Each structure stands twice: as C-alpha cells, then as structure tokens.
C-alpha cells in the first residue's frame, strides 16, 4: 500500500468517525413583521467540531442556532439533527431537543429549584434516571464546572458566572449530542466571562460538538475549528480562525473585524 493510499484510507476513516450532526440547508425565516432574518443559510456541523458564529447584531445568528432545536420556526429549507428532521409544528420535537443542549444569554435557570435540582429535573423526568443516579451524575458535572459546593443553593444566591456554569451543567446532564451556546457571556460582568469560557474550552477539548454564537474573539481564535460569518441573514464566510482573523477576503467581514478588533 502506498503512502498516499494510507493517507486516503486514513482520511476516509476520519470522515467516517466524524458524521454530520447538524445539517441545515437553505434555511429561510421571515418574522411576523415581515423582517427577512434568514435568507437561505446552509451549514453542516460534524461530530466533535467547534463552530463559532459571528456577525453584527441583527445578522440572524441567534435566530439561526435557535432553529436547530426548534425554538425558532422557519419557513423554508431543512434542518436535520443527527438524521432527524426538525420541521415546524411536528410532534416529537421534544425527543430531538433532548439531544441538543442549549445555553442561553440570560442563563434561564429555574429559580424555584436548587442548583442540584435544576440539573436533575431533566434526567429524572425525561431520561427516567433514579434520583440517586441523577444526583450522582449532577454532582460530577458540578465538579467539572467547579461549583459542587453550591449544589444546595438557589440560583438567586449565585453570581452570573456561576449561574451560567450551572446552566452548562444542566444542558450536559441530558447527555446531548451537540451543545448550542447563544451568546453565553454577553450578560456577564467582565470578570466572570473567563470562568465560563474556561468551562466551554474544556468542553471543546473533551470532544463535544459545539455551535457558539459569541463575540469573544479570543475564544473563537483559540477554540473554534471553523468560524461562520453571518450578515443580514446571509452566510458569507465559513473558514478557519486563522483565515478569518488574519486573511479575511470579504469586504463586509473586514469592516466587522475592524469594528471588533480595536
């Protein structure tokens, strides 16, 4: 076998190991007020990839990732999560959502449940785990995000950064195939951004498939496999961090970068 063949074989194995988890094709959405927020956006995310979505505000990036778990209905195109189509108003969307973790800008922890119960409610009620098993798994996740000692507290007793780390643990507790992050650090005080990004970084290193809408340049540069640039509802760049930041081709992207990289 020639070295080239070995290389090709190696490559095809690699492709087999990395099947697509998210396949979005020509997704179009218009809001009720007539605003055409997504104008036919396509994106494929493979298993284990970390994809960062960037773009100016109003570009449709949050709307786009919210279509991946059916929180945002769309009118045209198609989205598949691990082979299961996400279509509007279809029964069974709950089953797909269990496989897709989501972390929100405003954390959205449940205020009436302790940190521990925020994490175990999904696994107990939806995955059928026993309370003991769910709590053990939750404590392990809380160890990972560094807040095990706060397990008995209510979300209102935690700082923003701690709440967001609990929110990440809550999403992970469902053992999702992919994690969506919708501006996870935008509502945080500056000194708390890092603790959340560190958790995201170690999550990426563990091989989790991640799609992140974020303005954190450092995170995008160091952690992303690909950076997607959306503007006015169009995907105009899908490239490596190096190309994205050091050799941008599109005029709109250059303008954007000049605005965010002061």
């Amino acid at each position, binding site marked *: 076998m020639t070295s080239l063949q070995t290389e090709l074989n190696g490559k095809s194995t690699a492709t087999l190991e990395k099947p697509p988890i998210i396949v979005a094709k020509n997704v179009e959405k218009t809001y009720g007020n007539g605003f055409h927020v997504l104008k036919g956006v396509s994106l494929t995310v493979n298993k284990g990839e970390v994809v960062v979505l960037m773009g100016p505000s109003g570009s449709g990036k949050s709307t786009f990732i919210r279509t991946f778990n059916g929180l945002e209905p769309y009118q045209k195109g198609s989205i598949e999560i691990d082979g299961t189509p996400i279509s509007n108003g279809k029964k069974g969307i709950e089953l797909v959502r269990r496989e897709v*973790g*989501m972390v*929100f800008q405003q954390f959205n922890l449940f*205020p009436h449940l302790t940190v521990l119960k925020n994490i175990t*409610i*999904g696994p107990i009620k939806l995955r059928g785990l026993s309370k003991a098993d769910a709590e053990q798994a939750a404590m392990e996740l809380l160890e990972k995000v560094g807040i095990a000692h706060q397990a008995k*507290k*209510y979300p*209102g007793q935690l700082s923003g950064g701690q709440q967001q780390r609990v929110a990440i643990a809550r999403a992970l507790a469902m053992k999702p195939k992919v994690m969506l992050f919708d501006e996870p650090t935008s509502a945080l005080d500056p000194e708390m951004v890092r603790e959340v990004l560190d958790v995201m970084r170690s999550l990426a290193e563990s091989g989790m498939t991640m799609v992140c809408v974020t303005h954190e340049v450092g995170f995008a540069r160091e952690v992303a496999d690909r950076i997607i640039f959306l503007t006015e509802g169009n995907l105009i760049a899908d490239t490596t961090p190096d190309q994205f930041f050091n050799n941008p081709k599109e005029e709109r992207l250059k303008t954007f970068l000049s605005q965010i990289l002061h």
Partner: protein
Amino acid sequence: MHYSFDFSVIWDNFGVLLAGAWLTLRLSLMAVAFGLVIGIVGSLFRTSGNRLLNGIALAYVEVIRNTPYLIQLFFIFFGLPAVGLKLSAEQAAIVSLAINFGAYSTEIVRAGVESIPKGQVEAGLAIGFNKLDVFRHIVIPPALANIYSSLVGQVILAVLFTSVVSQIAAEDLTYAGNYLDARTFRSFEIYFTLAILYLAIVWIVKALAYVVEARFFEFAKYRQ
C-alpha cells in the same frame, strides 16, 4: 334602655359553635384546594394561546365574577336537582365555593403565569419538556410565588364567603349562630362571639398560608 349581658348562652352552647366553626374551616380549606386546581387549569387555558380554551375560561370567569355568590349557591343547591343533580347542603357548599374561588384564582394565577420570563419556558423546552410539563414544573411554581400575597387575600375572602352557605342550611358557624339566636334572642352575645370566631379561623388560615410559603416558596427570598 337596659340590657344585661349574659354570655352564658355562649358557654352553654360552645359545642354547637365549635362544630359550626369546624365545618367553616373544612369548607374553606376544601374550597380553596379544589378552587386552586380550577384556577391553575383556568390560567393554563387563559394563557394557552388556544382561542377555544381561552374562550371557555374567560366565559367561566366572567359569569362567576359578575354574579352574586348567593345566586350561584342557590342555583347549584336548588336549581340543579331539576336536571337530576342532587347534592347535599355540604356538597353544594363545597362545589359552589370551589367554583367561585376558581374563577377569582384563575385571573390571579394568570397574572403570575404572565410574569414568568419567556426564557424560562424556552429553557424548559430546550431540555426536552413538552409544553404541559413546562407549565407544571417550570412556570407554575414561581408564578404562584409571584402572586402569593394576592392569592392569600382571595383565600381570606373565600373563608368569609362561606358564611353564605348557612342559607342552604349547611351547618357552618353562621348557621350555628342563627340557630342559637333564634332560640335565645341573645343576638349581641352570639354575633359578637361569631365575629371573634371568624377572626380566629382567618388567623388559622393565615398561619397555614405562612407555613405553605415557608415550605414551598423559600426560593423567593433569593430572586434577583
């Protein structure tokens, strides 16, 4: 004008009054328990976005809140037997009080439901809960905490409303008082005592409400 007060009528008949007070307390608690269930379902209908369900709940609320409770009670106790539904005085009292409290609590709980940020619902859906489970597990507990003081106020009104059921001879505290008054003509002593006993019942209910709050809504202290 000479009237010599004689509270012996109270001491001699304290068992009668206590039995009446006990029924009043039981009627109150059952009416509130069933009524709250109606109110939670009603608030679900009102906020469901389904026009039919919303219409049903709205019609219910409008009819009950805009007609006298005495008429509702008479309709259920005297009217419904005409269509074959015959209830005892106590049953009619509980049913009518629950229906009445349900209408008021529908609107109070609805306000609580509407106070919950949309992000809470989205977080529940994102985990994989269906809409009904999101409502049950994620929306209702903090919604109730948000409107708890209004709800307790309505509960107290419901307790006081129970005195009306004496009109269908349900043997509540007011009925016991009327009964003693008709036999002894000691109106001052009897109704004075009745007022104090009602006050005591409301205090008991308030104490229970406080216990419920401490037990279930502890988190509300920590909300940002």
